[in-house]
């Protein structure tokens, strides 16, 4: 048995046969495939939000009190950062589609910088919480000791660190993808005529933004205003 090349043949509606040169030009197929991947992400985060909703319904007061102790100005700042980064990513894609490669690269770099700022703010926030004794594994978030927080607050912070952590991991992946995209653009593998990679990475970044749109109010805002239960 040899390994001779067998061409793949595609036939159009009129019966004409064409030898398939590759599927790289299948823009819609690439887009559809990436959407299917993103739907699995929705399922994953959906399950986490379901757990969050379940425990929120059981421990409403604890959740509201714990939420009130978060720094919602830092959370809000990060919301705006992600919002602007979604714009720069979108404008970058638009510039790529009209053939402005330099402008597209500039916008991708702007998105990367905004993503790093987001992670920096998150690091400041987590450090402050760690210094207040609130972090995974510390006494306050373990039940059954003198420093233990109420059970509902332990659940809240467990979910808070897990979900914002997983979201932050997606941001890091996104930065890696954007750096890879820049490399592909520099190698002219991504250009005006073939930009599905750019399109899909922009979609990914929008998904990361979309998840934050719900993570932010669920963790930071449910304890805002006069409904804090007098915790702060």
């Amino acid at each position, binding site marked *: 048995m040899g390994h001779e090349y067998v061409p793949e043949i595609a036939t159009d509606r009129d019966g004409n046969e064409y030898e398939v040169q590759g599927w790289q030009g299948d823009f819609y197929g690439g887009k559809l495939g990436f959407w299917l991947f993103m*739907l699995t992400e929705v399922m994953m985060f959906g399950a986490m939000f379901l757990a969050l909703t379940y425990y929120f319904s059981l421990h409403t007061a604890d959740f509201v009190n714990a939420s009130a102790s978060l720094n919602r100005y830092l959370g809000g700042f990060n919301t705006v950062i992600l919002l602007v980064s979604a714009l720069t990513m*979108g404008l970058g894609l638009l510039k790529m589609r009209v053939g402005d490669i330099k402008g597209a690269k500039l916008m991708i770099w702007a998105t990367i910088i905004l993503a790093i700022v987001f992670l920096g703010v998150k690091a400041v926030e987590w450090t402050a919480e760690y210094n207040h004794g609130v972090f995974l594994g510390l006494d306050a978030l373990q039940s059954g000791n003198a420093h233990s927080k109420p059970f509902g607050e332990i659940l809240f912070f467990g979910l808070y660190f897990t979900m914002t952590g997983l979201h932050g991991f997606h941001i890091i992946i996104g930065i890696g993808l954007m750096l890879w995209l820049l490399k592909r653009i520099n190698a002219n593998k991504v250009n005006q005529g073939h930009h599905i990679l750019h399109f899909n990475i922009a979609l990914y970044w929008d998904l990361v933004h*979309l998840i934050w*749109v719900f993570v932010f109010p669920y963790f930071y805002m449910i304890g805002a205003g*006069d*409904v804090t*239960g007098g915790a702060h």
Partner: protein
Amino acid sequence: METTNVDYKAERAGYYKVLVGLLLLTAVTFIQPHMFMTDSNFMVQMFIGTVKAWMILIYYMHLKGEKLIGWSVLFSLLLVVFFYIMVIIDVNHFQFLDLSHITSEVTSSGAANASAAH
């Protein structure tokens, strides 16, 4: 490929319009707990989030005019909603409190906290 006939100025203007809309909604997110409907804080926040998500999906993620992908997204979201409803029904009619010490403890303290909050 969809590289031809890109109306750069119109699309860029669209991006900025959506940005302004999202920023305004974010501002509403911030002032709402202090200004209006404070008794329904959670529901209002989730509603604003849903409107923002819809804007992102339709305009930033180019779902406008996408039939197959649009329906796929709707289907998956409905699937998530279905699981939410099933769990909510299950939690409201939980029959095995005495068989699960974890659930029993959580439910009783949770009920006390929940009633204290209202």
